[in-house]
C-alpha cells in the first residue's frame, strides 16, 4: 500500500523537528524561496530567456551597450540592457547562473563522494591507511582551497591543447573545485565512522559475518550523513563563489559560455564608463544565490545540532 506509506511519511515529516524549525524561521523561508526561484530560472533558461547568449550568430553588435529598459535609451527587448557585444544581460545571467549552479553542484557531489568515501575507509580501517589519508588531508588543509583550484586549472590549461580546452574546461573546473573541498568531508566522516564502528550494532554485524563493504554502506554511512549534509550545503555556496572567482580571474569557464563570474569580469571593464548594468546585475544574482544557500546551510546546521535544540 504505497499511498498509505507515503502519507504516513509526509505526516512524520510534518511533525518532525526539522520542519518545525523551518516553518518558524522567516529568514530560512525567504532564502529557500530565493534559492528555489534562482535554480528554477536557471534550469528553465532555454525556455524563459529572451535570447540565447551562447549563439554568436544571434548577436548584433549594433545592440551593444544598451542600458536597462527603465533608463533612457533602453529597449524592451533587453530588459536589463546589453553588454559590449550586444548580448542581452538578462539572458546571459540566466544562462550564466545555470553554469555556476552546474559547476557548484557537480563539484560538491564530487567532493562528497571522494571525501565521504575516503573518510569512511579511514575511520573504519584505521592504522596506516588512516594515517596516510589524514596526512594527505593535513597537507591539503595547509593550502587555501582557491590556490589548489587555481593550480589544477593552470596545469590542465598548460597540458591540454587550446581546441580541446574549450570542451573539457567545465570538467576541469569541477575537478579542481571538487578536489579542493574533499578534506572537510573526509575529516568529519572519519571521526563519526570511528565512533560508530566501535558501537555494538556494528560489532554485532561483524560477528554474524557481514563484509566490511556492507557494514560501511548499510550501517555506518546512514549514521554519518547528517553532518555531511550540512557541510555540503555550505560548500555549495563556497563552490559557486570559487567558480566565480576563477572565472573572474579569467581561468574558469571559457568566455564563449559565460558564467556569473565571467559576466562580472566582462562588465568590470565598463564600470568607469558608466555602463554599470553589465557587471552589477550578475553581481546581485551571485550575491543572492550564495547568500541564500549559505543561510540555508546555517539553518540546517542549527536544526541538526542536538546541542542547540
Amino acid at each position, binding site marked *: 500500500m504505497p499511498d498509505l506509506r507515503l502519507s504516513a511519511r509526509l505526516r512524520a515529516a510534518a511533525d518532525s523537528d526539522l520542519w518545525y524549525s523551518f516553518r518558524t524561521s522567516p529568514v530560512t523561508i525567504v532564502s529557500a524561496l530565493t534559492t528555489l526561484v534562482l535554480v528554477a530560472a536557471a534550469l528553465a533558461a532555454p525556455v524563459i530567456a529572451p535570447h540565447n547568449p551562447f*549563439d554568436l550568430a544571434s548577436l548584433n553588435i549594433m545592440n551593444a551597450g544598451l542600458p536597462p529598459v527603465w533608463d533612457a535609451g533602453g529597449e524592451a527587448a533587453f530588459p536589463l540592457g546589453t553588454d559590449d*557585444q550586444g548580448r542581452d544581460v538578462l539572458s546571459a545571467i540566466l544562462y550564466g547562473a545555470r553554469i555556476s549552479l552546474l559547476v557548484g553542484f557537480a563539484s560538491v557531489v564530487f567532493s562528497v563522494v571522494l571525501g565521504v568515501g575516503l573518510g569512511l575507509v579511514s575511520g573504519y580501517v584505521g592504522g596506516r591507511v588512516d594515517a596516510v589519508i589524514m596526512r594527505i588531508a593535513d597537507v591539503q588543509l595547509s593550502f587555501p582551497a582557491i590556490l589548489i583550484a587555481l593550480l589544477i586549472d593552470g596545469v590542465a590549461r598548460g597540458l591540454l591543447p587550446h581546441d580541446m580546452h574549450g570542451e573539457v574546461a567545465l570538467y576541469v573546473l569541477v575537478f579542481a573545485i571538487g578536489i579542493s573541498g574533499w578534506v572537510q568531508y573526509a575529516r568529519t566522516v572519519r571521526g563519526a565512522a570511528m565512533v560508530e564502528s566501535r558501537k555494538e550494532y556494528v560489532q554485532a554485524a561483524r560477528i554474524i559475518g557481514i563484509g566490511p563493504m556492507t557494514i560501511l554502506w548499510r550501517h555506518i554511512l546512514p549514521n554519518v550523513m547528517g553532518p555531511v549534509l550540512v557541510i555540503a550545503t555550505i560548500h555549495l555556496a563556497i563552490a559557486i563563489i570559487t567558480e566565480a572567482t576563477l572565472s573572474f580571474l579569467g581561468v574558469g569557464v571559457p568566455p564563449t559560455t559565460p558564467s556569473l563570474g565571467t559576466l562580472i569580469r566582462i562588465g568590470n571593464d565598463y564600470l568607469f564608463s558608466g555602463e554599470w548594468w553589465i557587471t552589477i546585475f550578475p553581481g546581485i544574482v551571485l550575491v543572492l544565490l550564495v547568500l541564500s544557500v549559505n543561510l540555508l546551510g546555517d539553518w540546517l546546521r542549527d536544526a541538526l545540532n542536538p546541542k542547540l535544540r
Partner: protein
Amino acid sequence: MTLTSKLLRSAAAVALAAAVGAGAVAAEAATLRWSYQGDATTMDPHGLNETFTLGFQGNIYEPLVGYDKDLKLTPMLAERWENPEPNKWVFHLRKDVTFHNGNPFTADDVIFSWQRSLTEGSDMKGYGAKAEAVNKIDDHTVEVVTKSPNPILPREWVFLYMMDKEWSEANNTTEATNVKGSNQGNHANLHANGTGPFMLAERQPDVKTTLKRFADYWDKGIATNVTDVVFTPVTQPATRVAALLSGEMDVIQPVPVQDWDRLEKAPGVKPLTGAEARSIFIGMDQDRDELKYSSVKGKNPFKDARVREAVVRAVDVKAIDEKIMRGAAEPLGSLLAGPINGFDASFGTPYEPDPEKSKKLLAEAGYPNGFTVTLDCPNDRYVNDEKVCQAVAGMLARVGIKVDLLAQTKGKYFGKVLAQAGYDTSMYLLGWTPSSIDAHNSLLNLAACRNKDTQAGLFNLGGYCNPKVDELTHKVGSETDQAKRNAMIKEAFEIVRDDYGYLPLHAQPLSWGVREGVEVVQRADDVLDLRSAVVK
C-alpha cells in the same frame, strides 16, 4: 657635534656634490610611474619587432638615427649621414658616447649590432637584411652597402638599436633572444647595456621594471627631469584607469575608448588622444595546403578568394568602430593608416558589408554550412583588441563561419604567430605601424610574398602572395619620384584589396591617460619617449 650629526652633514655634502655633478638632473629628482596594458616583451633589442617593446627599449638603447616628436629624423648615435652613392650610406658616429657600463661606442659596435640582428632568433632580420655589408671606415665612421638603391635606409633603421660588442661577448649574448622562448635565459633578455638616458635597474617580467637615469648620457639637452621610472604592466583596463584616477600612476597606456569621458570629467587627470599611425586588420592563412586550426581537412578554404571575400563581406567594420571603438577609430579598407606616407583617401573606405553575399559565396565555394577556424588574438596589445576579435567572431558566426577565439597575452600570441614560430596560425588579428612611417615598409612586410632570403613578407603571417604586388613593392623601394611612387603604392594596395588578401578593420586612436602636472609627448606611433617626459 655628535657623531650622528657629523654623519648627516657629510651625507648631505655628498648628496649635494652628486647633485651638482649631475647638473640639473638630480637637483629635482622625479619619479615617473608608468603603466601599459602589457609588458615590454623582452629587453633584447633584437628579440621582438613590436612597437611598444621597441619604444620602451628606446629609452635604454639607441639607434644611429632616430625620431623626434613629429616622427622626423633626428641624429642619435650618428651625428651626420650621407648617401654618396645610390647603394651606399655613410654614418658619422658621435665620439663622446659611452654605454652604461662605461665602454665607448664605436664602429665595431655598429657592425656587431647589425650582425646580431641577423642571427637565428632575431625578429629584426627584416631591418638587418636591408644591408648587404656594414664596413668600418674608421672608429667613428661606418659605411652601409645596400643590395639595391635605398633612399630611405636611415628611416628604416630607426628601431635598429646599438649594443655593446664587448659586453655582449662577455655575457655570451651575441645571438638574439628568440621570442618563441627557446633561449629565454639569454643575458640580454633580462639585462641591458645601452647608450640611452635610462639604465635598466630592475627587471621582473610581467610585474615591474624600473629604470634609473644615466648620468653620463651624451645629450645634455633633453627636456626630462625624470630620474627614476617605475613601469608596471596592468592588463585589466578598469584597474589601469583606476590606478590613474587614484593618483597611483602618472601615465597609462592605453585608456579604453569607453573611458575617455570619464577621464575628461575627473579632476587631476586628462586623456591624451590623437590619430595613431597603426592599422588593425585580420589576416588569413593562404599558404598552407591544409589549415592547421580548422574543421576543414585536406584543403585550405582561405586559398579560395570567394571564401576570403565571404569573410570580408561578413564583417561590418563601421559597426565595430561605432560600438567597440566608440567612434574613436578610423575605419579602413586597406592596410595603411592616415598618417603614413603614401596614404590615399580611397584607403579609408571599408569594404561594403554584405552578409547575404557572404553566405552565397561560401555555398559556391563548397561550404554551405560554413566551417570552424581558430582566430588568434592578443588581449593586451591593441586598443580593445579582444573585444574587436569577439565582435568579428560574432559577425562571422552569422554567415556560418564558427570562430574559436584564442585570445591571449601578447608574449604568448607573438610567440605563436610570428615567423620564429613558423607562422603557427590560421587566422589572426594584427596591428601594424610601419616603423619608417612609409608605405613601403607595410607593403614589404605585410603584402609582399614571403621570402627567406630577402626577409620580404616577414610579417605577412598568412602568406598572402601576388607576384604583381611583389614587383610593385620592389619598384616602390627604389623610386625617388614622389608622385610615381604614390601611384605605385596605390596600385599595389588596390591589388591586395581586389584579392581580398586581408580584412582591414581600422586605424586605432592614440589613447593615453596622463596625470596633470606630467608632460609627455605623444608620438603618432604610440611611443612614449622618456627624453621628453617632465614630472612636476
